[in-house]
């Protein structure tokens, strides 16, 4: 099964980001393809490399970047939503990118499922 994920909330403040990650991990472990994680609304703030959580906490941006590198998952923030919230190439974590809503449309077209996490 090919899966696209839409993530609509930012990291730490809402569990949505954690649930999306755990879901993606489980799907990959079961042999499914997680094609892309598209970030919308406050979700775009998942990929700022400037986040610096406490040492004993998860680093959410880096975790998305590694998921991308290790499993070929595209991690993409919507450009319009990003501009409103101060997410730009300047702060993107390695493994993530910025794109338009047309890409989300393509993600819907080329995958069997769109699974959405928000709050």
């Amino acid at each position, binding site marked *: 099964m090919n899966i696209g994920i*839409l993530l*609509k909330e930012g990291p730490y403040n809402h569990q949505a980001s954690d649930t999306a990650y755990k879901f993606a991990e489980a799907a990959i472990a079961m042999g499914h393809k997680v094609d892309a994680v598209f970030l*919308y*609304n406050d979700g775009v703030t998942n990929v700022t490399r400037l986040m610096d959580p406490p040492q004993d906490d998860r680093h959410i941006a880096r975790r998305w970047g590694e998921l991308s590198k290790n499993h070929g998952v595209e991690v993409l923030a919507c450009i*319009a*939503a990003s501009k409103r919230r101060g997410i730009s190439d300047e702060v993107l974590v390695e493994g993530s990118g910025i794109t*338009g*809503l*047309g890409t*989300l*449309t393509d993600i*819907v*077209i080329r995958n069997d499922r*769109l699974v*959405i996490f*928000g709050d």
Partner: protein
Amino acid sequence: MADDNIRKIMHVMRRAPHGTIYTYEGLEMILIMAAYEQDISVVFIGDGVYALKKGQDTTGIGIKGFAKTFMALDGYDVEKLYVDRVSLEERGLTEGDLLVDVEVMDASEIGRLMTEQDAVIHH
């Protein structure tokens, strides 16, 4: 599927406008997906019906209004606008309070349409 690049995508407006950005950014998503010629429907459930309320004037709160964009959906060939009957009624609203022509439907019928979609996106 009739066309390999057309998907049935339902957008579900669930929030009141202005208190959060979800309705507005949902509308931006709808316009792009419509430009990509997807088979779009838009459903208004719960406080989502307030997005269509006539007479919204956002001057005072300093946020750009977008109610009129719903009136422009037609021009993007987004013509399937459905409103949940119970949501409308329990808010003391009627079709006459709404900015655009919609089809008022029972939840069971909307639920059936949901099962036919390739994707359902709540805003």
